[in-house]
């Protein structure tokens, strides 16, 4: 029978009522709190018993404080005198248990308690949430800019999507926490002046949902990197994993050991920050050395649309008899779970350009839409007033639009096929046969 249990717990910092109730229920089931982390709490098995729990706030507390440091000693002794035993602490939150039948509560003056909680909020949590809100606004700002410029690029870029998702989640979480706290504080302060305590009801459910979704999004992003047929991306995924393991496992463990050995707060904080920097630098330098040593190509950092890496869907020589030596080819590819995008430019070399008669040139974007609901959105994002409907049949397409500028049509088309869009720009007017080749190669018809 296991003696310890580790649980992912998510409470708002001010939700003392929720934490107390939860810990009393756990004790009644035979689990007492042994250790508190930011996310994981460790419980130790014990005989099921009735216990009174108080969550207390210590404004001078820090996650680097030595266990039972001088600051805490006075409070711990005072509390022990009334039967309250400190069982665990995390930064400014302390948990006390009392096994007496009817103990004197630790907090008997609501005004003092609310003031102590608000000192902790002002000192730590409100600035922290402010920082998270700033990060959320930054992420959403970057995503919105990309979306306004080109929705298809935003939807096919896994990094952009992750930033967008995390931005929304962080904004939601931080807003719920800040608004929830300020509402509670306003009411609690008024009631405290009448000598009454106010129970808390934190945003635990929202916090858990947000945390779960964010972790799932990060895990999917990480798996996506790992599954790429690109050793640089795979090495990057491994590097991320090592840094994450160090930040969430190894370094907090070192911090805890130093606290147990009563290493001074400043030393512990410096060692922890130094280790974070050292591990991150070592991993990144190691990755760079690996890439250089293996001679991996770092120019191809695109992801997805793997089927076209070695076999492009369409090359210019399949439409026009050209000398491939005279051409520069540029390719971009991105693919998310929603949309894939493959762009190809085949342009005549600048130095070889013949002013008398320019060689044919071709640029196209192939958009593969994985989520049917996004089809119209992607299509409409390309359509603007300059595109006019044209005959789709020669292109073997469902719909076709041609670019028109100053009432003159240009050889630039938006072609719609089942599940995919093609935006193609040619330097010449295509023949019926060439249109059919485009429909066959790019439209997959």
């Amino acid at each position, binding site marked *: 029978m296991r003696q310890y249990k580790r649980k992912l717990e998510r409470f708002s910092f001010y939700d003392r009522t929720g934490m107390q109730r939860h810990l009393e229920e756990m004790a009644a089931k035979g689990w007492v709190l042994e250790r508190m982390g930011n996310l994981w709490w460790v419980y130790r098995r014990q005989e099921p018993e009735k216990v009174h729990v108080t969550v207390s706030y210590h404004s001078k507390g820090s996650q680097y404080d030595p266990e039972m440091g001088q600051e805490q000693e006075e409070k711990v002794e*005072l*509390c022990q005198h*009334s039967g309250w035993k400190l069982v665990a602490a995390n930064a400014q939150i302390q948990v006390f248990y009392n096994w007496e039948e009817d103990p004197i509560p630790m907090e008997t003056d609501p005004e003092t308690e609310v003031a102590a909680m608000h000192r902790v909020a002002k000192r730590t949590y409100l600035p922290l949430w402010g920082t998270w809100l700033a990060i959320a606004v930054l992420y959403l700002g970057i995503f919105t800019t990309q979306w306004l410029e080109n929705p298809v690029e935003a939807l096919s870029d896994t990094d952009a999507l992750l930033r967008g998702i995390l931005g929304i989640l962080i904004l939601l979480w931080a807003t719920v926490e800040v608004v929830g706290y300020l509402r509670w504080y306003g009411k609690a302060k008024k009631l405290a002046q009448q000598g009454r305590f106010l129970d808390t009801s934190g945003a635990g459910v929202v916090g858990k949902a947000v945390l779960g979704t964010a972790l799932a999004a990060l895990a999917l992003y990480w798996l996506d990197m790992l599954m790429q047929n690109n050793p640089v991306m795979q090495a990057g995924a491994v590097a991320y994993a090592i840094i994450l393991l160090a930040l969430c496992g190894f370094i907090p463990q070192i911090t805890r050991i130093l606290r147990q050995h009563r290493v001074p707060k400043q030393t512990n904080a410096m060692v922890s920050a130094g280790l974070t920097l050292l591990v991150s630098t070592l991993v990144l330098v190691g990755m760079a050395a690996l890439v250089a040593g293996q001679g991996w190509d770092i120019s191809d950092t695109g992801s997805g649309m793997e089927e076209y890496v070695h076999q492009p869907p369409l090359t210019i020589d399949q439409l026009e008899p050209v000398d491939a030596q005279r051409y520069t080819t540029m390719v971009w590819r991105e693919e998310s779970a929603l949309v894939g995008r493959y762009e190809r430019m085949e342009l005549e070399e600048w130095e070889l350009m013949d002013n008398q008669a320019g060689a044919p040139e071709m640029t196209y974007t192939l958009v593969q839409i994985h989520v049917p609901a996004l089809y119209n959105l992607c299509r409409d994002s390309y359509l603007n007033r300059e595109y006019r409907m044209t005959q789709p049949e020669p292109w073997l397409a469902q719909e076709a639009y041609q670019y028109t500028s100053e009432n003159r049509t240009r050889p630039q088309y938006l072609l719609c096929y089942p599940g995919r869009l093609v935006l193609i720009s040619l330097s010449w007017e295509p023949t019926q046969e060439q249109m059919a080749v485009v429909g066959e190669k790019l439209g997959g018809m």
Partner: protein
Amino acid sequence: MARAKYQTLSEQMFYVLLCLRQERCGIDILDQIPAMTGGRVRVGSGTLYNLLEQFLEEGFILETKVEGRRRSYVISFKGQEVLQQEYERICIQAQDYRRMMGEEEPS
């Protein structure tokens, strides 16, 4: 209506300051207040710790010595003034009560 900070003292604040007319450590205060009030007033240990921290910040009390885990405190001149103000306020309240209830003013 919101109450200005320390313009009036809560009962627990009052007794903590009153206890510190003599130098005392936290545990002494925890024991002294119920003894002084016949068990009517009890101060929680968390509340006492926070009050001592707040009073030190406000300069109402002074730390006099540290012996191991124990710190001792005594009321300051400023704290004495606050305590005196609170006492006078309570007296005025009591006088008002007596007058309104038709009781005689104490001689």
